[in-house]
């Protein structure tokens, strides 16, 4: 059914001009990897989806289909966030089941304090996307995350 959907709508929706099966395989593989990363480390699936979608939109632009919906970087980010939500829900469910034995949190309910600011922040971030330069924000964020990643490894190694 999915293949039928791609055959009938895929060319228009994804901008794939030829070899739809190959393109479909790439999207499926990217989704699988995104889910695997998200399920393994609890984050990171979104960035895989953004990379995969950006690649597709580049192909589409190359094929002269730039006017097709979803080609703007903001649309790509929105599609990535929409896609990662069900993946995160599945990750959260199975991650909680599979790693329950390793948990040291006696009452996870106390972390409900994060829910409200998370929802407010999410809305503000989405609203600000039209007014800010995402390229600059992404660079600042990336630099911050490099520092954070190094800090985590150093802490685990006992250096920090």
């Amino acid at each position, binding site marked *: 059914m999915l293949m039928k959907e791609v055959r009938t709508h895929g060319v228009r929706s994804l901008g794939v001009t030829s070899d739809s099966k190959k393109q479909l395989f790439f999207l499926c593989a990217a989704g699988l990897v995104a889910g695997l990363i998200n399920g393994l480390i609890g984050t990171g699936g979104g960035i895989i989806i953004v990379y995969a979608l950006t690649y597709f939109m580049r192909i589409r632009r190359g094929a002269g289909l730039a006017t097709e919906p979803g080609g703007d970087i903001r649309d790509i980010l929105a599609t990535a966030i929409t896609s990662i939500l069900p993946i995160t829900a599945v990750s959260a469910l199975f991650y909680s089941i599979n790693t329950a034995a390793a948990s040291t949190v006696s009452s996870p309910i106390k972390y409900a304090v994060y829910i409200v600011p998370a929802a407010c*922040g999410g809305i503000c971030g989405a609203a600000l996307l039209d007014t800010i330069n995402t390229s600059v924000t992404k660079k600042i964020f990336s630099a911050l995350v490099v520092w954070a990643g190094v800090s985590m490894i150093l802490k685990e190694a006992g250096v920090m």
Partner: protein
Amino acid sequence: MKIIVWDIVAAFFAAALSGMGVGGGGLFVVYLTLARDVGQYDAQRINLIFFIAASGASLIIHFLRRKINFLAFLIFAVMGSVGAIAGSLIAARVSGGALRYIFGAFLITCSIISLFKGSKKAGAHEK
């Protein structure tokens, strides 16, 4: 009290980054593990729930303002869910320390790619 204020501030800003789509979940795990000394398994689990709240709320704006590619969404959601189940099974068999190394290495790799490559491609279509 002071810790709760910092929790709220950290959650808000990490969620804002998530809502923008530039990532923020990773940074929130770092906050939980480094600043709050939460274990890696628990930090990742809390982050998943945090991200559902942040991205779920941001979708209100995205659905109104953006053009979502629903076919891509469908493919990613189905295949990603299968991958997520596999990923969580692997996570249960890896130690918390090893998971932290994997997490740190992933963050560094993706960020370096974003810093030096990704933004150039995306930049042509941004403000």
